[in-house]
């Protein structure tokens, strides 16, 4: 994925005012993990979406208002759950360490 910038993915082309963006990066130590899978679970733990990480370990979801859980799967690592709160009009930045 192109457009990666320090501090998070580029939001060029995304209408942030209308979206509840959750995005971030998966890291193993200081190294980005490009072949991980990040799942978005709703507040009841139900699967909502899943994306593979980009070459720079980044991921992004367009969610809705409320509490979500990110479940990260990667080779040779245990799944990692991360709680996050999203809101329309804002960008929730998350770093996941595996």
């Amino acid at each position, binding site marked *: 994925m192109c457009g990666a910038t320090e501090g998070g993915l580029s939001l060029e082309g*995304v209408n942030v005012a*209308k*979206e509840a963006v959750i995005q971030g990066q998966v890291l193993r130590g200081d190294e980005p993990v490009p*072949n991980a*899978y990040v*799942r*978005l679970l*709703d507040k*009841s733990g*139900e*699967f*909502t*979406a*899943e*994306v*593979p990480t980009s070459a720079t370990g980044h991921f*992004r*979801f*367009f*969610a*809705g208002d409320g509490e979500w859980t990110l*479940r990260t*799967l*990667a*080779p*040779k690592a245990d*799944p990692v759950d991360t709680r996050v709160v999203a809101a329309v009009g804002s960008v929730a930045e998350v770093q996941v360490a595996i």
Partner: protein
Amino acid sequence: MSRESSLVTAQWVEDNLDTDGIVLIEVDEDTTSYDKGHIRGAIKLDWTTDLQDQVRRDFVNKEQFEALLSERGVSNDDTVVLYGGNNNWFAAYAYWYFKLYGHRDVKLLDGGRKKWELDSRELVSELPQREKTTYTATEQDHSIRAFRDEVVAAIGAQNLVDVRSPDEYAGRLLAPAHLPQEQAQRAGHIPTAASVPWSKAANDDGTFKSDEDLKQIYTEAGVDWSKDTIAYCRIGERSSHTWFVLKELLGQENVKNYDGSWTEYGSLVGVPVALGDEPGEA
């Protein structure tokens, strides 16, 4: 059909990478994923360009499908093994599509690309060379494809299974959460449809749950096994995954995939729509 005849493991695929008569095909929602690395010997089908008519909203016709597979070097006698990202959504869609056009021996790689990657198995960048063939398809098998009128007629009469996420079902979202919010004119679900998100059928690594677990999930959601079933989602790809479970793994006789799905139904004039977490009345 059964699990044994329709599903293969990652290990089986690795053991058969050089077996003649087996064609691996990657089909992904992210159509660039193959280009970044794929299972050795696999060819690519692009669901947006190869499998869709480029003018009307419909599939390529029989002659176009024949030309496509002939050009890619797939024979009628080949065992086609499909895999892809997103827990095999689009691979399952292609599986259903191959069945629609009468391909005899089709299988899914259990867990798809994710399972393969999480196992740290090899992906390569070199492109395979395959001799052109003369592929012959059958007419579409409409016993597995539902159209809008029969979906409306199925309200309150057949099993309708909505496999989207709970928020899409209830009308709180119009599309999966990793895509921008767009598509149908109205949010919600087809009245009387049971909500059984496709993901309930899969483990975290993308492999399918056991037949016993699957049967229990759909039974508890209200699927009446004595009735015919229509599965739908947003554009028919996630519901292909559920169609595969019901028809190919569990052996339910009459199961159709509604590929028009919510992007069609939610834009129809005059049809009933239910909002909220309950199925609603016919």
